[in-house]
């Protein structure tokens, strides 16, 4: 009872310290919302305005029909046509065009005579990711052109036809993939900032000693310090989930219970890591550096943007220590798959383990860190 009262007193003090200060109030609310908007609008794998130049030596109707399919696809923007090899090279070199569609002089003739004709695509491969995506769009357009040409000219269809269906995200909208990930990203940032600075700030200002000479037990300090991070994280998570569902129209197929179970466990582990960094640091500056050193790898190794399966085996094993990795699976699972508690079991328990271990270390460090 007494212990609860002391923990509560500390938690209230932490909230007062956070909320009385205009700057820290601002830091908790405004940057996450801005980041959510920026990430969600700006971070997209979809290409919509690929600058395309056409070098049309053929000028036949078949050629114009193929070019029209490119310009009408919505992915490409046609720039001024190219008239010779030199100009073609120049366009790519100066990055004025990402892709050049080259139709040789006898394109239409060959197509009419043989039913097939070569088309050349020259692509700027400096950004391999963008190039691959643009190439896949071009492939799809040419495939469709082939099928339609075969039908309209009564040619035999190709032996097998690929009909693809994307499950969970039928239109392969990258926003559906990114926004749930942003929920995890922002929660991690906010919770780390709130918790990692709390102990370090007190150490730097000398108030931590004052706290240690009160009857507060390290476990009580730990809980009192963890509560504000957990509650603020919960508030932010709810806010971001609301914006994701109602603002960005990302479907939330799974149950809220599963989602909040994941959020709670993730908050526990993020708070643990934050407090551990804070307890290790002697000054605010060290804590800020510590957070930075943790955040960047945590985001890159989380599967937020690049799949973990693509990483070298050793790095893949390293990601097992990263709480965000598990939370990403939970978020995407609950949002897009409607996954339930059982399917996500193996994501839940590692979060709990990371949370408990880091909190224990933080609590031990309160008293044992040497000055």
């Amino acid at each position, binding site marked *: 009872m*007494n212990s609860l*009262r*002391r923990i*509560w*007193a*500390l938690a*209230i*003090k932490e909230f*007062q*310290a956070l909320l*009385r*200060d205009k700057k820290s109030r601002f830091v908790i609310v405004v940057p996450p919302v801005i980041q959510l908007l920026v990430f969600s609008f700006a971070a997209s794998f979809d290409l919509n305005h690929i600058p395309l130049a056409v070098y049309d030596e053929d000028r036949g109707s078949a050629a114009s029909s193929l070019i029209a399919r490119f310009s009408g696809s919505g992915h490409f923007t046609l720039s001024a046509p190219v008239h010779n090899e030199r100009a073609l090279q120049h366009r790519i070199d100066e990055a004025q065009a990402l892709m050049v569609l080259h139709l040789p002089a006898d394109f239409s003739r060959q197509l009419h005579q043989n039913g097939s004709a070569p088309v050349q695509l020259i692509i700027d491969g400096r950004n391999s990711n963008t190039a691959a995506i643009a190439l896949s769009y071009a492939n799809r357009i040419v495939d469709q052109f082939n099928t339609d040409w075969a039908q309209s000219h009564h040619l035999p269809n190709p032996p097998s036809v690929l009909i693809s269906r994307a499950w969970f995200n039928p239109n392969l909208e990258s926003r559906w993939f990114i926004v749930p990930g942003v929920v995890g990203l922002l929660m991690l940032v906010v919770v780390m900032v709130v918790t990692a600075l709390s102990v370090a700030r007190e150490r730097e*200002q*000398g*108030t931590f*000693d*004052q*706290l*240690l*000479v*009160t*009857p*507060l*037990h390290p476990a*009580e300090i730990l809980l009192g310090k963890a509560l504000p991070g957990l509650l603020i994280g919960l508030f932010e998570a709810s806010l971001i989930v609301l914006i994701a569902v109602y603002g960005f129209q990302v479907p939330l197929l799974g149950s809220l219970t599963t989602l909040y179970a994941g959020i709670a466990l993730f908050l526990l582990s993020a708070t643990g890591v934050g407090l551990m960094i804070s307890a290790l640091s002697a000054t605010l500056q060290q804590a800020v550096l510590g957070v930075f050193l943790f955040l960047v790898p945590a985001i890159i190794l989380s599967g937020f943007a690049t799949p973990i399966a693509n990483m070298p085996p050793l790095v893949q094993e390293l990601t097992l220590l990263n709480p965000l990795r598990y939370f990403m699976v939970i978020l995407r699972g609950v949002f897009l798959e409607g996954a339930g508690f059982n399917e996500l079991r193996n994501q839940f328990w590692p979060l709990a383990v990371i949370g408990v271990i880091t909190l224990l270390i933080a609590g031990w460090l309160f*008293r044992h860190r040497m*000055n």
Partner: protein
Amino acid sequence: MTKSMSETMTEAMAAAPLLHAEQVSKSFAGMARAALNAVSLCVPAGAVTGLIGPDAAGKTTFMRLCCGLLRPDAGRITVLDRQIGRDDAAIQAEIGYMPQHFGLYEDLTVAENLTLYADLHSVPQAQRPDRFAQLLDMTQLGHFTTRLAGRLSGGMKQKLGLACTLVQPPRLLLLDEPTVGVDPVSRRELWDIVYRLVATDGMGVLLCTAYLDEAERCQQVVLLHEGAVLGSGHPADFTAHLNGRVFGVRGAANQRRALQTQLRQRPEVRDAVIDRDRVRVLLAPNTAPPANAAPPWVPLAPRFEDAFIDRLLEQATQRHPPMQVAARPEPSALAEVITVSNLSRRFGAFVAVDQVSFAVRRGEIFGLLGANGAGKSTTFRMLCGLLPASSGQLSVAGVDLRTAAAQARARIGYMSQKFALYEVLSVEQNLRFFGRAYGLNRQRLRERLDWALNEFGLAPLRQQNAGLLPLGFKQRLAMAAALLHEPDILFLDEPTSGVDPLERRAFWQRIDALANAGVTILITTHFMDEAEYCDRMIILSQGRILIEGSPAEVRAGARRPEQPDPSMEDAFIHWISQPAAPEHAA
């Protein structure tokens, strides 16, 4: 020496002053009163001008204005015949300014720091060997040229800072609290250096300090209080009108504090402080000492501090009645509340505390004294359970606070060297938090909160952020927070550093009341006159106890033919200059 100095002074006074400030005012946004209000003063060549005043009097602001680091709101400052605000770079090149926290590079050695400052001031290579030798000789840092600045003691750092300021000999030297946080030995050494600069180079020095006893070392004093000049002139001018109003009353050795409290209650007594074996009394104007009093009242020569207190009290603050403290229950057996035996603490190869043993009895005020880096704070932190001991035993109220149950800590109160409450929280929020942390229930918390707000005069400030309080009020708040839960033992780490003399008097009055009620008090301090308030004390040097005893015993041990009645500061210097301390050996 005095004669030659007063001669140089009269000559210099006649010449144009090096620095001349007229009606200078400066305010900062968000502060209730102006930092400086129409301050005028002159700094002559060949003399030390002291800018004396408690913390937050505006001393540092004035110094920064004189260097062109801040712009005054009104008024004019002329430095070396140039007006500040026009050609500040030229002025800055010709003056020497040592701010409170001088920018020494802690990862560079003493010699590298000197070279760096010589480079910054473009001192020609040819002049450097001579100049460096001279500076190192003057500051006695010659043996430490290869030591990292970060590894020097507080006093040595200040001396190195001064040496770096002097690489290019300036005509005007501005020193901002050069002696703050410096032990008495280093303080004396710093003053000797300043005197030598004035005597040999004819430099003009403006020095600001919160130590009132340092005022008497200046040739000219400007008294600053709350941003306004209270008076200026030769130190003796301030005390002249106090002749016949200062007396010493001698009481029994262990009754001094009781006698002081008793004297303070008399209507004609304006101030009473403990000074060696007697109580020093300042009478209100036009009053006389009681006739045939026993013990007798012996007239004393007035000191600068008497004059300062007299001026402040003229501005009328009502007298505070002694604090009411509930007597602590007599313990059944434990007469010795704190015991320490063979306590040691090592940091790597460095031994910070070496085999220290002492005991503190219930209701005693016990002082922990020592030069910078003597091991005071380390011992203190071990006792509070903030730092584990390397070896030895210690017990506070029968337990080791580091390993004892959390509840044992509820019996102690702690006040750290730096203000260590939450600055963004209000006064009341701070008190409520600490009350709850010590487990006071709702009813009790309300009672103690009312008590604290009234006793410490914090009621009008209860909603204010603790960080914005003036220093004296911060100290009161810290003490209120430490006393909310009525601890039996109080740990105070340099509680009065930087606090003005009136506030210090109120502080010691409270400590006295607490000790009388049976609270045990362990205190560290840099103010030697405050050590007189202790019942017993130890002086530490290099981690070892040099002497343990009552103030009278410590003074008696330092008695010498040439020093028949040493003050506590004399005694302190005597003890730590014993052969065991090579860094301070002359």
